[in-house]
């Protein structure tokens, strides 16, 4: 499971920064789901729980919770690979409205 949201790290000078680029700009506050134009929506009446969407998601922004795949919209960029790969065709890509 995703950890709790961390506080954004800001270094005020080069001296404060580590030599190696590690954990700078943590993904816990950089929610890349904001890039999304279309969102996957799953129809559980058609879902066969095969796990293909979970396997193909490159982000990865699909978790299997209990038996069902669940999209993490904080990180899903709306690429549509899950909808393309779903053998039951239960994922629709719907225009994002904000």
């Amino acid at each position, binding site marked *: 499971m995703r950890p709790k949201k961390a506080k954004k790290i*800001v270094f005020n000078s080069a001296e404060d920064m580590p*030599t190696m*680029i590690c*954990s700078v*700009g943590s993904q816990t506050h950089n929610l890349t789901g904001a890039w999304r134009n279309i969102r996957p929506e799953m129809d559980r009446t058609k879902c066969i729980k095969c796990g293909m969407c979970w396997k193909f998601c490159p982000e990865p922004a699909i978790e299997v919770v209990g038996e069902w795949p669940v999209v993490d919209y904080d990180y899903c960029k709306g690429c549509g690979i899950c909808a393309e790969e779903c053998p039951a065709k239960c994922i629709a890509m719907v225009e994002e409205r904000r």
Partner: protein
Amino acid sequence: MKKVIMGNHALSYGAMLSRAQVISAYPITPQTQVVELLSEMCADGTLNAQFIKVESEHSAMASCIGASAAGARAFTATSSQGLALMHEMLHWAGGGRHPIVMGEVNRSMAPGWSIWADQNDSLSQRDTGWMQFYCASNQEVLDTVIQAFKVAETLMLPAMVILDAFALSHTYEVVDVPDQALVDKFLPPFKPAIKLDPADPRAFGGLTGSEHYMELRYKLEKDMEKAPALIEETGREYEKLFGRRLGLIDPYRCEDADFVFVTSGTAGYTARVAVDELRASGVKAGNLRMKLFRPFPFQAVREVLAKVKKAAVVDRNCSYGAGGIFYQEVKSAVYGWPGMPPILGYVTGLGGRDITTDSFKEIAAHAAARDRADEEIVWIGVKK
């Protein structure tokens, strides 16, 4: 113990004595024997290291970066097209501050397909955040690998140890292979302050916004600038233990010279013979062999050139449209400093064409008739 070994094996012995823990490489002529010997050493237990066979040079460098991030001392070697294929990963090693040491055999870039020496392969990688050492003897190759690990791990910067294809890589010379115990005294185990550790998880090289990126690059540049002084210091420390001086430059008969060649690699030793012969014929010549190219040893170069009347930079490389690369850098090192001599540039020896004492005499004669640099690139030994 003295051994007669080829330049490539001098790299292997350097990595062995440095107790490299991960070696990942892909074979390419003329580098192949470097990793052949290391793989034999890993197989027979001479060297306690993980040898990773990969499908490309890009992967070789990627696995060295992973190993280094996990706190292991990593070594690889490549040449020419292989180095070019590594290009993206070279930035990851430099920018990510992974102190990997790599043997790099200077081989000209294709096309035309060529396996012979010139420096365009390594010089094309000058802006990747790697230190670059150019060697002229097998002894220097071995000593430089050990020193490079020490400097690299102190500054957290990767380093290339560079030697000419065939002229050094396949040439056998007597090399004093130091005792392991003495090398251990010089080079302690690699213990990075930050490393990949499942008990303390971190992401390396992640997304870095404009509020932090520039400071990280500023730190890299500042650490690069510390390298010349540290190389002098570790060179003196090395001399105390092994009796051989390692430094930034190798001046030969420069103190009272009117005219000096600026050279690098094996041509730097041929130049010494030419200097002696020119001196016998009345020309007060000298030779400044560049050992360190990145970071550029500005001050050391200026100190030598301030005392001479004219310098000719001999480049076994060409930045097409701008001339020899060492030439450009030497010129910029003296620019704006009063009392500096005119610096002239010559391109020769591309694709493994021999650079002989006659080449140097031709350069000396040509330079005698010039008193200022012009933009025309002067080619020596080309069939025009």
